[in-house]
């Protein structure tokens, strides 16, 4: 099985290679010629795959080893296959008539007859070719893959569930190409071998003769047809010269024959009684093996200026030789003293072919070496030319020796002094080579056809003409050149009859040829222009590309590279040891080195608390411990000040909410108790109405229930704090509390009893006992009064009226509400007694009190005067205690501000609760800290407000610092960079654009892939990455490492290091993305699922490398 799998892979690789080749050809040359070698080799590779484990039974009577039979089978049930099958049949039929025509001459030349018939056989892989040209092959293969069970063994490539479809899909590309039969410029503009040039020149200069003379055998083919239909006579002249030209062209490189060797003025003595004639000797490789052809000069050069020499010509035609090397067993070589070489070929039957005399120079040798090369790999000369042993002769030296001897002999002959030494060597120069073919002929030909050998890049000059396309030749034209030669003797007998036609034909041919050449020339000019313009556009694109790099990307990195290794290896990072070295007397001055170490190696975890403030710009490098201490003190004071501000507002909001909730609850209870009033009526009267009333309430005090529930856990501490402050400063407050509290807890208690399991199913809040709740409610009221009082003296009357107008304006059915509230209040009152724990507020432990001592004096002073008013207020509040007159009105705070804060607080609470609940650090207490920081920041940035994700950014800072004010300050620093990533900022689009450019420059393949899958335009899979600096993508320890690297990178290599981390993440998984052909959605899903599973070390390393790559790219501009 393993070997089968290997075999399958091997086959598949071969196909891949060929497909790649052909696609490259299509891209670089913009068209592929139908006879291109790539197609042949592709067909060979496909054929091999198709033959792999093909069921013999499936093909029935058809012979094994041909996929044509397979096609015929498939065509019975699959239409495209049937079509291809028909086309192939069309192509094959004419050739068979040609065959029959050529057979008439069989008796004349026994040797040639067999070869001629085979030479006419269709080119290999005909149906595959046709299928490719008709763009059907991929479909047929796909069909085969889908129905593999009918034709293939289980272990075959086609039946393989993975390889099969791959195989079929590989062919889609080639099937999408357009193939041309046009001659390409290559045929005319590349340098053909000198010999060939000579031949070509000869053909061009004396085309008329060349065309006419070999035209005669052609006529024989036509003659046969003419018998069938006399009307064809009119077309004959045209056909003559075409076939004539074909003969000559057949002597050259073409699609079926590869010219291996060509030499003019080779003497052959065709008959014993004739003297040797000079002629053109050529060695061809065809699908059927090697062919040696010799054509007398008289035929090549044209000997019939006047058409009188017919006898001569026919004689010459008789002399022309075509020898199939397969028939030859021995090659006798004779070195002549005058340095000429003679080759006599001896056939299997022992009959000698006419001797071939090579002129002076190493021609014999080069002929032999070409011959030997041509025989390989399946045949060889025995002894081989270069072999060291064999026949007792040192044949290994034959080649050089021959050459040497040749030169020496030539010199000796030039001096006309035949020496004895030359005579000695002359004897040694007689060899007999045996031709060994080690493979069956079929195999041999298959290998021989290997187009790589046939179409070496240096000889692309074979004269393709549209007529020479294998099948078209057969369909439209008289027999192929090889047939012509085979029927020459027959032709001779007929030649006289047609001599007149020949003259006419030659003139016509000449004319046609000229126009043809003109046409070609034009074509070439156009092509040249196209090539030049293409080159120009390529250059232009390159320039644009570089410009993109320079203008868009050069801003992403700093242009000076940073050494990783000096002064010390950066990979070790900022260790404790290193830090103590850098931190002299508590002053760190060498910022560069700190950044460098952090950038390459990160910070030791225990140092982070100290180092991060530097990295974030909170502490300045070079600052003394005292300065830092002072700064922290100032920050803490500031933080507490801000906190007291928003805590005040929060208290107001909470109070307001309570009232709303009370109202809601009343309404709801009313709805539920006297069922006839509410829902039905409201629903039927239109739901909108319900909404109006509801909205009006909530517009002024949104997030009622939620607020209450979600802050349940967090509020106690903050409120308690206020109460502490107050109780410390003045005992009157306590008294005030005492007087104030009774009505409030009632309400509170009511609320909490009614909505104990509110929102979110949050178990945290519920964990706290009822005592806490009641306690909080008490402190709440304290907070309210405490903060309210300083404000109210100034603005109480206006304020109250304002509030009332607001309420009346907003609540449409305030009357109803009032009624409802009356009910509620009754309920509330009835429950009053249940909630009484007055004394507890002052005795409650205050977790935050220590840190807030600094605040207390000021707070005390500020609040003191207000306390006097307090009595009135609380009294009046009691009287006002109805939902329509919210006692917790925001004082100087506008309704809009309160709404905005309330909304933000609600959101913060929601997200704080959900923030990293699974991380051990975030217990209730620390979540409170997180909330405080978040609220403080949002209070300072109310214009932006809280946006989801901010919590995620605070969390790691808090984990490291475990200090509210420090974490807050650092968070502010962090947000300087991050805040523009949030929806209001618009930096995200810039990130996406940069990302796009970077991928385009650094990973063109991936970019191409993304381009094809359209939706990538927005790179949304990176959204969370950039918004949170990868916080959600990585586990906490990795987040720390990544963040500090980003911060250090800002001072080292790039202020956009996140981009490179993102790019690195993409790079790490690029193969997966490409192999699975992922589109936009797949990638989002993939990366979401990969969150917290990345190898961060590797990612960071790649990111740094990418930075370096871009740096060099920009440097090298």
């Amino acid at each position, binding site marked *: 099985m393993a070997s089968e799998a290997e075999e399958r892979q091997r086959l598949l690789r071969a196909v891949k290679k060929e497909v790649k080749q052909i696609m490259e050809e299509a891209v670089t040359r913009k068209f592929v010629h139908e006879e291109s070698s790539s197609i042949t080799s592709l067909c060979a590779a496909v054929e091999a795959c198709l033959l792999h484990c093909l069921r013999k039974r499936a093909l029935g009577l058809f012979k094994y080893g041909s996929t044509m039979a397979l096609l015929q089978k498939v065509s019975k049930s699959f239409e495209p296959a049937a079509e291809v099958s028909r086309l192939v049949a069309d192509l094959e039929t004419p050739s068979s008539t040609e065959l029959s025509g050529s057979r008439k001459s069989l008796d004349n030349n026994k040797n040639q007859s067999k070869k001629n018939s085979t030479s006419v056989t269709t080119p290999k892989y005909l149906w595959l070719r046709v299928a490719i040209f008709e763009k059907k092959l991929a479909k047929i293969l796909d069909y085969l893959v889908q129905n593999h069970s009918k034709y293939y063994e289980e272990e075959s490539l086609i039946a393989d569930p993975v390889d099969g479809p791959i195989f079929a899909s590989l062919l889609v590309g080639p099937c999408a190409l357009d193939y041309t039969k046009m001659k390409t410029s290559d045929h005319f503009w590349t340098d053909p071998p000198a010999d060939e040039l000579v031949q070509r020149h000869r053909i061009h200069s004396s085309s008329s003769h060349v065309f006419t003379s070999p035209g005669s055998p052609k006529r024989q083919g036509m003659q046969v047809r003419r018998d069938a239909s006399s009307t064809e006579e009119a077309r004959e002249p045209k056909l003559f010269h075409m076939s004539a030209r074909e003969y000559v062209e057949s002597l050259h490189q073409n699609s079926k024959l590869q010219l291996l060797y060509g030499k003019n003025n080779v003497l052959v003595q065709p008959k014993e009684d004739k003297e040797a004639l000079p002629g053109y000797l050529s060695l061809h490789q065809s699908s059927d093996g090697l062919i040696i052809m010799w054509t007398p000069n008289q035929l090549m050069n044209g000997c019939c200026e006047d058409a009188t020499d017919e006898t001569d010509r026919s004689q010459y035609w008789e002399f022309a030789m075509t020898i199939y090397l397969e028939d030859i067993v021995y090659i006798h070589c004779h070195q002549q003293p005058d340095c000429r070489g003679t080759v006599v070929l001896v056939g299997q039957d022992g009959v000698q072919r006419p001797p071939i005399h090579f002129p002076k120079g190493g021609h014999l040798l080069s002929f032999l070496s070409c011959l030997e090369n041509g025989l390989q790999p399946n045949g060889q000369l025995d002894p081989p030319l270069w072999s060291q042993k064999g026949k007792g002769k040192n044949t290994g030296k034959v080649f050089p020796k021959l050459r040497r001897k040749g030169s020496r002999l030539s010199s000796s002959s030039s001096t006309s002094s035949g020496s004895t030494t030359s005579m000695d060597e002359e004897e040694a120069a007689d060899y007999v080579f045996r031709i060994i073919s080690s493979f069956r002929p079929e195999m041999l030909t298959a290998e021989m056809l290997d187009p790589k050998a046939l179409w070496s890049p240096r000889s692309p000059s074979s004269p393709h003409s549209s007529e020479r396309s294998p099948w078209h030749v057969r369909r439209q034209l008289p027999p192929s050149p090889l047939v012509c030669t085979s029927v020459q003797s027959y032709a001779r007998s007929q030649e006289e009859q047609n001599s007149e036609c020949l003259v006419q034909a030659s003139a016509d041919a000449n004319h046609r040829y000229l126009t043809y050449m003109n046409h070609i020339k034009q074509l070439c000019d156009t092509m040249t222009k196209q090539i030049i313009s293409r080159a120009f556009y390529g250059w232009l694109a390159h320039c644009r590309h570089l410009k993109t790099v320079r203008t868009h990307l050069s801003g992403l990195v700093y242009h000076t590279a940073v050494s990783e290794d000096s002064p010390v290896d950066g990979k070790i990072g900022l260790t404790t040891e290193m830090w103590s070295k850098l931190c002299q007397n508590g002053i760190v001055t060498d910022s560069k080195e700190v950044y460098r170490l952090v950038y390459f190696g990160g910070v030791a975890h225990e140092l982070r608390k100290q180092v991060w403030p530097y990295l974030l710009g909170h502490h300045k490098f070079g600052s003394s411990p005292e300065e830092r201490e002072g700064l922290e003190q100032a920050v803490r004071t500031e933080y507490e000040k801000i906190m007291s501000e928003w805590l005040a507002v929060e208290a107001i909001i909470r109070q307001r909410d309570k009232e709303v909730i009370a109202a809601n609850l009343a309404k709801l209870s009313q709805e539920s108790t006297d069922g006839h009033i509410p829902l039905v009526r409201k629903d039927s009267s239109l739901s909108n109405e319900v909404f109006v009333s509801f909205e009006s309430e909530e517009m002024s005090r949104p*997030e009622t229930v939620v607020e209450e529930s979600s802050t349940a856990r967090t509020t106690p501490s903050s409120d308690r704090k206020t109460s502490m402050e107050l109780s410390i400063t003045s005992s009157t407050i306590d008294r005030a509390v005492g007087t104030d509290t009774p009505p409030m807890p009632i309400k509170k208690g009511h609320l909490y009893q009614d909505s104990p399991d509110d929102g979110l199913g949050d178990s945290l809040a519920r964990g706290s006992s009822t005592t806490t709740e009641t306690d909080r409610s008490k402190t709440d009221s304290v907070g309210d009064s405490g903060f309210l009082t300083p404000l109210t003296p100034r603005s109480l009357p206006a304020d109250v009226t304002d509030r009332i107008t607001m309420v009346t304006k907003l609540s449409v059915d305030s009357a109803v509400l009032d009624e409802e509230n009356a009910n509620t209040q009754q309920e509330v009152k009835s429950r009053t007694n249940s909630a009484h724990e007055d004394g507890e507020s002052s005795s409650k432990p205050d977790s935050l009190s220590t840190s807030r001592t600094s605040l207390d004096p000021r707070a005390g002073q500020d609040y003191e005067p207000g306390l006097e008013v307090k009595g009135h207020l609380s009294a009046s509040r009691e009287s006002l205690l109805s939902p329509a007159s919210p006692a917790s009105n925001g004082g100087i705070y506008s309704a809009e501000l309160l709404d905005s804060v309330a909304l933000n607080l609600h959101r913060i609470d*929601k997200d704080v609760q959900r923030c990293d609940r699974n991380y051990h650090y975030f217990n209730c207490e620390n979540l409170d800290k997180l909330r405080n920081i978040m609220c403080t920041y949002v209070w300072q940035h109310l214009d932006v407000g809280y946006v989801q*994700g901010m919590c995620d950014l605070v969390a790691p800072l808090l984990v490291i610092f475990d200090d509210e004010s420090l974490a807050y300050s650092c968070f502010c620093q962090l947000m300087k960079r991050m805040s523009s990533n949030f929806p209001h900022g618009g930096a995200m689009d810039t990130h996406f654009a940069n990302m796009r450019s970077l991928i385009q420059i650094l990973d063109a393949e991936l970019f191409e892939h993304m381009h094809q899958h359209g939706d990538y335009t927005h790179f949304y899979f990176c959204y969370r990455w950039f918004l949170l600096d990868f916080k*959600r993508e990585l586990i906490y320890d990795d987040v720390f490492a990544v963040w500090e690297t980003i911060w250090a990178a800002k001072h080292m290599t790039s202020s956009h290091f996140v981009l490179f981390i993102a790019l690195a993440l993409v790079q790490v998984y690029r193969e997966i993305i490409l192999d699975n052909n992922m589109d936009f959605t797949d990638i989002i899903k993939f990366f979401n*699922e990969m969150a917290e599973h990345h190898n961060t070390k590797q990612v960071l390393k790649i990111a740094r490398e990418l930075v370096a790559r871009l740096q060099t790219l920009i440097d090298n501009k």
Partner: protein
Amino acid sequence: MASRKKVLLKVIILGDSGVGKTSLMNQYVAKKFSNQYKATIGADFLTKEVMVDDRLVTMQIWDTAGQERFQSLGVAFYRGADGCVLVFDVTMPNTFRSLDSWRDEFLIQASPRDPENFPFVVIGNKIDLENRAVSARRAQGWCHSKGDIPYFETSAKEAINVEQAFQAVAKNAMAQESDVELCSDFPDPIKLKDDQAKPRENCAC
């Protein structure tokens, strides 16, 4: 198994933050509930294969960020949606109130062919909680006024009604698409691990 063409239905879940969109999605797809979900940033989706009227349908359920600030991202995700699930929290009236804007925003951004009959489903989530603040009748009334949107009261935590609600959106989306040639060459998602939505039972507190 119906051997007809495999259909992909893209369903978007919308609603205020914290109403339980992620929980609903995971309960439906993975049959798991966790109280550890974080606020969704950006967007995520899960796929589930379901049979709708003996047709195999792949539901691609998109979970989105709840804060309306992130709606600008929506365009990319809403495009090509076949159905939309609007979620509110029955204990929080304001989440119910914002259904209007979610629906409108969706119709603007997704711009479906037939906005009037676009397959919506409304889910009132968290019915396992006791402090209910939005009555079923009110929710139903709203749904009725918006063209008889099916309304379901669910609990993602207790897995109440979740299956039915999503089945309904799939069915309606299919009905909507039935006259249109449905064809999708969306490749199967690459499943890297199954335990993504593994519930973590312990609270961090």
